[in-house]
């Protein structure tokens, strides 16, 4: 196949990716958009097997190894993607992004080893960029994965002098990059990879749990740029187009997400250093709270005229989306006005709750975004908060310096009654105490969200 045809096919794959991103931006075309993207990726992958790059011939060298490795990748990737539960999807996306960054870094390293002294300065610069950013994306994503999977603490990890260590590491990464560019050699490149991996870890550690989705999106954009840079080294137009597209759209998406949380990107990444560490009382809490029985909750709901349900991560963990729908249907049948108040970042990812409630066929009209639902809370009799905490925490409004300060919240405290379905008194993902739990108009029902909801539904039916 000659170069022109190869490039044209690559370009058509690039067009597929543009259409994919475009489609993914609208609810009606999203699924088709994703399939177009998959088609583009398939075309791009197939065509490489039919083009001999300079100094190479068909069939490709090491063909058996290449196909074998792809089969292994398929055998790992497909079952992981199919079997993962909805609750664990954010972690999986983080992990997929990390391995992509790792792959880009490896590609750059191999090409560097092969080119040796023959590499041009521009190629070496692109290689250095790919290795640094790819490694940061890889190790950073692994840390976000561990935070989301709760293999490690979800709170910001800050150690004394942390910012100096991070700044020092960044300086040595850049210095080492300069060393590779000026001296050329395998050892400096491997040191560079190691330092970059370390920097990725340090970079993500101080980010608080609730901000992790923003970081995943940012690392996603990073990986896109590394793909573009390796496209330059490998002389592949397709990789440049695809990588740049992801880098640019990922940057915008990161900004949109940060806006949805009312944070600046800078605040998200470095907030832990400027905020005063908060003493969070975990356990040993002795202030009185009012806990109720499922019957109490059912009675409160039964005599309400308007109920707003605020779902959070606890709903996802308990897989209670179907039960909550049953409850909402029951209330609607009694003539009670029911709406779901969806915080843009409820759960572990923006849009997490929409995905979950869509699975339970909750009518689209009942889902209200934050701006829509907030003005209605004063007319709401009961705000039913299911497994959510940070997104209704008034600390975001009135405690300057706490990690979520400035994040817009759902003003559930304006409702007549507030009911929390919680597993325990443990603070939410961001690790901050919620004053609302101690409010006199708050009723707490402890237990697994699904079990609690089932009991409430039962109690409501027998009223």
């Amino acid at each position, binding site marked *: 196949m000659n170069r022109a045809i190869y490039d044209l096919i690559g370009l058509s794959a690039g067009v597929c990716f543009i259409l994919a991103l475009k489609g993914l931006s609208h609810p009606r075309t999203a699924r088709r958009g994703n399939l177009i993207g998959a088609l583009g990726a398939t075309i791009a992958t197939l065509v490489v097997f039919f083009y001999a790059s300079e100094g190479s011939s068909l069939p490709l060298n090491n063909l058996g190894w290449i196909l074998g490795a792809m089969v292994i990748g398929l055998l790992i990737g497909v079952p992981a993607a199919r079997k993962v539960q909805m609750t664990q999807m954010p972690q999986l996306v983080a992990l997929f992004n990390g391995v992509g960054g790792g792959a880009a870094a490896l590609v750059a390293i191999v090409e560097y080893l092969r080119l040796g002294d023959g590499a041009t300065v521009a190629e070496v610069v692109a290689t250095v960029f790919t290795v640094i950013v790819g490694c940061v994306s890889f190790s950073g994503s692994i840390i976000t994965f561990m935070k989301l999977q709760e293999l490690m603490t979800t709170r910001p990890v800050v150690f004394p002098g942390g910012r100096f260590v991070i700044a020092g590491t960044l300086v040595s990464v850049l210095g080492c990059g300069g060393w590779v560019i000026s001296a050329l050699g395998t050892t400096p490149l491997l040191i560079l990879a190691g330092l970059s991996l370390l920097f990725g870890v340090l970079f993500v550690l101080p980010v608080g749990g609730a901000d992790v989705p923003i970081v995943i999106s940012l690392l996603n954009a990073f990986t*896109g740029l590394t793909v573009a840079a390796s496209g330059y080294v490998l002389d592949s137009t397709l990789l440049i187009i695809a990588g*740049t597209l992801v880098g640019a759209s990922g940057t915008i998406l990161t900004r949109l997400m940060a806006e949805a949380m009312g944070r600046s990107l800078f605040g998200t990444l470095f907030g832990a250093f400027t905020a005063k560490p908060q003493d969070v009382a975990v356990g040993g809490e002795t202030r009185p709270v009012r806990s109720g029985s499922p019957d109490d909750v059912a009675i409160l709901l039964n005599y309400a005229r308007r109920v707003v349900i605020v779902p959070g991560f606890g709903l996802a963990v308990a897989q209670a989306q179907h039960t909550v729908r049953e409850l909402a249907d029951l209330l609607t049948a009694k003539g009670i006005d029911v709406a779901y108040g969806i915080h843009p970042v409820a759960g572990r990812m923006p849009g997490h709750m929409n995905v979950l409630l869509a699975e339970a066929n909750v009518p689209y009209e009942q889902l209200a975004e934050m701006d829509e639902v907030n003005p209605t809370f004063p007319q709401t009799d009961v705000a039913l908060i299911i497994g959510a905490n940070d997104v209704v925490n008034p600390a975001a409004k009135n405690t300057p310096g706490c990690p979520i300060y400035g994040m817009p919240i759902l003003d559930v405290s304006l409702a007549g009654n507030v009911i929390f379905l919680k597993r325990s008194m443990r603070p939410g993902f961001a690790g901050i105490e919620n004053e609302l739990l101690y409010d006199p108009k708050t009723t707490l029902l402890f237990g697994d969200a699904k079990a609690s909801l089932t009991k409430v539904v039962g109690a409501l039916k027998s009223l």
Partner: protein
Amino acid sequence: MEPMAIVAIFVLAVFVGFEVVSKVSSTLHTPLMSGANAIHGVILVGAIIVADHSSTNLELGLSVAAIILATINMVGGFVVTDRMLEMFKGKGKERTKAPK
């Protein structure tokens, strides 16, 4: 390739990337991120190219690792995005069926 052509491609792709996702509702943030994540799995193409070029065992070993990782990224990414969107589709169907 001409350096200027590369710069042109890069700049245009940046603007296209900005433009296509400039207005997207927060409902779709997660699937969009996941879909974009799958797209950068095309680094698989790069991994295959370097595997083809590999002449030493070290190079081949690293490229094989890159191919495995890139395949996981690409295929897993598209499958998981589709699973997320499947749920939206179910809802859409019901909406169009419901009498207005």
